[in-house]
């Protein structure tokens, strides 16, 4: 299933947007967290600055998000994990309330109650969770609801390779296959579960192989490439829409930044990130589009300018939005 020119252009622009979003966040996140602005003796203060708390960024992992989400409609559901921005952006979650949420502002998706790991956008049918492996059971539920309502909607659960040894992974795979749920399980393998490599945590070389234990197709995309992900995801999503059940898709991808910002990354071999960055999927797709005559320098610049405006505007909106009133902490336990 080769992507149309429109889909390639969409993926290209979304990848640029995700990258710019994440790199901007990496920069802003450091504001106020370094000496001399913090407590004496500390090298870094996680709770300081305009965006406090943990921050997990997805620079380098754009292909898996856009390659899958290019196939999705508004009625399809996406459930992401603790590193969720690329999925949210690819699913169409608006940048302004999403960013405001990370700044803890009243205009945020969750009015400042969730933060970056807990983004809920029911209009664009996106949610995520900070608990490893927890994206899968609720995605099964969205898929079950679609099936019960006789819709051809699908649900996608994204999770890292570190999640595949959780019970939730195995339980969800069994239930989804048993009930033929229209769900796609997407494992993004960025090689590290924080610091632990897959080879040290997982009994098989490829998680895709585990699909056979549950009677569903397991597909490995062995390259960090949007078109390759698109092709594999398309087959799986069409299968789900036809009512033929779930697929496990495993995508090899690259994490350019730390597990979280501030991660000293002592577990990574020297030069690894530089080597990964030489295989950057964004310029690769750009080159492909250029060679095919789809874009030229002028169009490329226009895309980048458009993206830059959107991202800049979102961060500005977040920065200038008001905080919630402290006592608003008491609201919304129940609806």
């Amino acid at each position: 299933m080769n992507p149309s020119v429109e889909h390639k252009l969409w993926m290209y622009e979304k990848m640029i947007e995700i990258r710019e979003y994440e790199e901007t966040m990496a920069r802003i996140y450091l504001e106020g967290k370094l000496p001399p602005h913090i407590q004496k003796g500390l090298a870094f203060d996680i709770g300081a600055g305009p965006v406090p708390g943990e921050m997990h960024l997805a620079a380098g992992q754009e292909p898996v998000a856009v390659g899958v989400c290019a196939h999705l409609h508004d009625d399809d559901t996406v459930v992401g994990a603790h590193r969720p921005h690329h999925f949210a952006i690819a699913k169409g979650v608006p940048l302004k309330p999403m960013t405001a949420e990370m700044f803890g502002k009243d205009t945020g998706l969750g009015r400042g109650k969730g933060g970056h790991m807990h983004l809920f956008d029911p209009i664009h049918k996106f949610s995520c969770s900070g608990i490893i492996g927890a994206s899968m059971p609720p995605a099964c539920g969205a898929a079950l609801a679609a099936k019960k309502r006789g819709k051809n909607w699908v649900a996608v659960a994204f999770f890292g390779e570190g999640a595949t040894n959780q019970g939730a992974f195995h339980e969800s795979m069994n239930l989804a296959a048993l009930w033929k749920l229209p769900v796609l399980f997407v494992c993004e393998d960025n090689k590290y579960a924080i610091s632990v490599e897959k080879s040290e945590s997982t009994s098989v070389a490829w998680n895709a192989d585990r699909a056979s234990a549950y009677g569903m197709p397991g597909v490995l995309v062995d390259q960090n490439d949007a078109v390759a992900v698109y092709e594999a995801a398309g087959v799986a999503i069409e299968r789900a829409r036809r009512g033929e059940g779930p697929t496990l898709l495993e995508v090899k991808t690259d994490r350019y930044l730390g597990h979280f910002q501030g991660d000293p990354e002592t577990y990574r071999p020297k030069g690894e990130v530089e080597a990964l960055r030489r295989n950057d999927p964004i310029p690769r797709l750009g080159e492909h589009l250029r060679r095919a005559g789809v874009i030229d320098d002028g169009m490329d610049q226009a895309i980048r300018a458009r993206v830059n405006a959107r991202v800049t505007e979102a961060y500005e909106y977040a920065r200038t939005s008001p905080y919630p009133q402290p006592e608003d902490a008491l609201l919304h336990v129940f609806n």
Partner: protein
Amino acid sequence: MKARKLTMAQAISEAIGQEMERDAEVFVMGEDVGKYGGIFGATGGLLDKHGKDRIMDTPISETAFIGTAIGAAAEGMRPIAELMFVDFFGVCMDMIYNHMAKNTYMAGGNIKLPMVLMSAIGGGYNDAAQHSQCLYATFAHMPGMKVVVPSNAYDAKGLMAQAIRDDNPVVFLFHKGIMGLPWMSYFEGSTNEVPEASYTIPFGEAKVVREGRDLTIVTLSQMVQKSVLAAQELVDAGIDAEVIDLRTIVPLDRAAVLRSVRKTGRLLIADEDYLSFGLSGEIAALVAENLDTVQLKAPVKRLAVPDVPIPYSRPLEQFVIPQVHSIVSAARQLVGASQLEGALT
């Protein structure tokens, strides 16, 4: 309104069935909820009427099916998931307390999770430490879950209908020893007149099961039935006990407790959950925080499981779970002690 006697199990299943007829979004998931009708009968007869697409037997896979209920609820459906024994929450608590309970809050109220998690609680039939706990206070302790703990068929039906219609996660806990099962002895007071027509009972409204002057027994679930029997025995000792059935503990009807204790001046809490850091402490704290308007004639007394797992052997289990005689004796001490004190001064 036509009414007839139902067991609590029948009443719960009738409420679910009526809500399923009323609303196509309601469905049930759980282990043995289909052909078996629920191990404790809460879904008895529903499969025949509603079919297996709406009464869904699941694998023994609580994380998957409770998480699935969460996902379906987020889409606007109204799932009821049965966790067979509340003790099994250990294998799926992440879905319950990190997701079901917190998502609405973390979304700033932008989502709804209209789902019911129902489960069996309680001991008294020698099923030992992993199948006999109550744990309602554990759920009530963590924000984001309404917690319903009925004591009889009439309340159970109305509270279940209310739970299904609520737009929030509701944990509905039925005590095995009041379900009226043909294979487990139960307290007959729990089997009572239940109208055929559908009705709801609002959450957060405790019921004065028995009015009295001398002391207030605050209780819930099966312990209500024990307390009523104890109150009858206490009449012979000249003690007039008021029995308050909390019915829901989130929300908690604090006003009802205070109203009664202001009247009687004595408080006994009869609880089948663990003693420390739980419901009995919460009720005692409520009174302590209101001592400016509550005149106690005696210190508060608590009956609960004394911080040990539920033991298997009959004499051991009966010792740790408060019984009718222990309620009677605690009430006598409470009233007697203060009457004595009153006589001396």
